[in-house]
């Protein structure tokens, strides 16, 4: 195999339990986002745009939709000879097999995969976050610092800091202390779950961690603290820009709404940093004479006869005459009849909402609707 200076390992096995019914049939990275994407498109596009040509995708929970979506990686230009994308599910070997026990264990179980590329560095990322980042800049920083590990960090508001893994750094950005979700944070530099490791150092720690029966085999809880204990050189790489963990219904809704302002912090219409996705090749959207569309994102294949405001419409959505959709996310192939009112809701793929129904309300709570429901004529539904 051709030697690679750095390869990426993308953790995509998470269930995303806080996304509730959205993830009953698919893994969190496969959850639809932003009118045409799945969450994992952002990390895969970052890899492609950063010039990373070898990506191992670690899958575990409900992998089918994710696997078939990734395919051979052609949407992200990752269908390459001698490199490209590999989907890496847990497997059985001669001594039996086991599930990925934690993020670090998932990498441990694929040491063979990494070693065949003989990389000097490994980028560990997850498919759970919405952000645009040039990993090659972080890589350059890692090499300049001569670090054993570099962790991308982001300043978060102090009152939210205790939800994150936090770094305390010295004047040179060297990490002196790491706390996982502390009650009384001493820092507001949060880990973004993006790591670059010098492979031979990480490999050693993974082997040792696996011997420790008390370990939860997790990067944040086990590997990083162990590296700090042994006085390895860990540096924080400060990221400026939009980054969002869309792990809850509320944050998923907010991240979608963030795209709707006239100049959003996350620009998805940047020709120099395209967000790639698998394209269903549908016709242009039709906006009827009676329709009104404001402050919204609308994808191909939509037929809009009603009013759409502050909303995100995925492909193939039909909005009937006299219907009003506000502050909502309408996932692929949802059919909305006439005179329907939808307010602050997430409607999952394939739902049919018949004439006159009322979904959601003004309470400020988000109404979530899961796949393949049919809502009968004139229903009123506020479900959470």
């Amino acid at each position, binding site marked *: 195999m051709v030697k690679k200076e750095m390869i990426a390992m993308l953790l995509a096995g998470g269930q995303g339990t806080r996304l509730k019914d959205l993830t009953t049939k698919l893994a969190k990275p496969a959850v639809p986002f932003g009118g*045409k994407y799945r969450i994992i498109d952002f990390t895969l596009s970052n890899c492609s745009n950063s010039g990373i040509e070898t990506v191992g995708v670690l899958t575990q929970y409900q992998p089918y939709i994710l696997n078939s979506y990734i395919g051979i990686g052609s949407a992200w230009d990752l269908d390459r000879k001698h490199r490209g994308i590999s989907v890496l599910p847990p497997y059985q070997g001669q001594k039996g097999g086991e599930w990925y026990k934690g993020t670090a264990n998932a990498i441990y179980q694929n040491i063979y995969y990494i070693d065949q590329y003989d990389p000097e560095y490994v980028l560990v990322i997850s498919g759970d976050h919405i952000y645009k980042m040039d990993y090659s800049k972080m890589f350059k920083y890692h090499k300049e610092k001569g670090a054993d590990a570099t962790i991308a960090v982001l300043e978060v508001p102090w009152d939210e800091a205790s939800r994150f893994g936090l770094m305390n750094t010295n004047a040179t950005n060297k990490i002196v202390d790491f706390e996982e979700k502390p009650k009384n944070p001493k820092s507001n530099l949060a880990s973004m779950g993006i790591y670059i490791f010098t492979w031979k150092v990480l490999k050693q720690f993974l082997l040792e961690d696996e011997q420790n029966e008390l370990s939860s085999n997790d990067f944040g809880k086990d590997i990083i603290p162990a590296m700090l204990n042994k006085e390895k050189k860990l540096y924080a790489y400060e990221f400026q820009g939009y980054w969002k963990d869309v792990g809850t219904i509320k944050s998923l809704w907010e991240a979608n709404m963030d795209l709707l302002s006239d100049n959003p912090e996350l620009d998805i219409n940047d020709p120099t940093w395209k*967000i790639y996705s698998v394209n269903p090749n549908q016709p*242009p959207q039709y906006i*009827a004479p*009676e329709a009104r569309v404001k402050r919204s994102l*609308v994808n*191909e294949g939509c037929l809009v006869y009603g009013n759409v405001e502050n909303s995100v419409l995925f492909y193939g959505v039909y909005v009937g005459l006299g219907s009003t959709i506000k502050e909502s996310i309408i996932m692929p192939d949802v059919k909305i009849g006439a005179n329907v009112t939808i307010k602050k809701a997430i409607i999952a793929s394939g739902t049919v909402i018949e004439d006159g129904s009322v979904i959601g309300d003004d309470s400020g709570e988000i109404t979530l609707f899961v796949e393949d429901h049919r809502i009968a004529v004139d229903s009123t539904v506020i479900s959470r």
Partner: protein
Amino acid sequence: MERIMGVINLGNEKDSLGDLTKHRCQASVPFGGRYRLVDFTLSNFVKSGVRNVGVFARNYYRSLLDHLGSGKEWDLDRQKDGLFIMPYYSNESYKGDIQHFYDNLPYFERSKEEYILVTQGSIVWNIDFRHVFEEHKKQGADITLIYKDYIQEEKAVYHTLDVDENERVQAVDLEKIVNQGDNVFLNTYLMKKSLFIDLMKETYEQGNYDFFTDAIRTNLESYHVQGFHFKGYMPFIHSVESFYNHSMNLLDENVLQQLFYNHGFIYTKVNHGPPAKYLQSSQVVNSLIANGCSIAGTVENSILFRGVKVHKGAIIRNSIIMQKGEIGEGALLENVILDKDVKVSKDRILKGDEIPTVFAKSSHL
């Protein structure tokens, strides 16, 4: 349909769309917000199960080749068969499609399919060629010619067919000024590949070079030549005016459904733009909008291709704006066609007549 090979013959196409066909062949003209005309025929082949498609390109094919690529978007990037592109390359000037076919004789001989269906690259239609094949077999025809009755008002020149009550072709009128109700030949024919090769060689050796005129028309009595009346939606596009009118017809729900939804999607090259964005100040009615657009102004009765930017206060009415157009603040556009990548400056007013004005690719106005 593994028994049929498809040919898109661009040799006889008239590049008749004024400035729109100045630097590209007609098959490559953008249509319907995100397509090129050739997408319809290519998608028809693929949906009919044809897996071997040869494109015989003649003029201005750079943009066509760029669009087709490896044929991946149409699932024609195959180990076996797939998409074959044969630009015209002879030192001699083009004498007719037979010469172009004859130069590529090995392509026809090597293809394993028993039948061949030759068509053109700029028809907007949804046709299932399997139905044509079934009818061809049922009638015991040697050659089947596909035609469509002319229902438009404008004057136009086409080859027409006279058919009897059994749809058998009795006579052909070449280059006729057509009236409503005439059967316009759609430059599309089906026959056994062996017959196609025989006719091609024979006619070539006689020093004649147009397949329809010299190989089919002259043989109406020697072979069973059957007509196939295509009854689906199919606009005749032969001028800027008809291009414009039929583009605008896409804003009719029924036409939209017939062309883009009822028969499965039309495939085209994907470009990874984000969903269209409607800003707070946008007002859009009765329009087709493609992905990658960003709209802060007013758009009425118009078609916006991928990546068009409409700034605040700009007004677009009854117009077609092709890829990457940018309309400056306060500009007013009525009855115009902007080719790709046209920039219109702030407060500029551009108005066409009933026949819309075309603004050339990449111009800055």
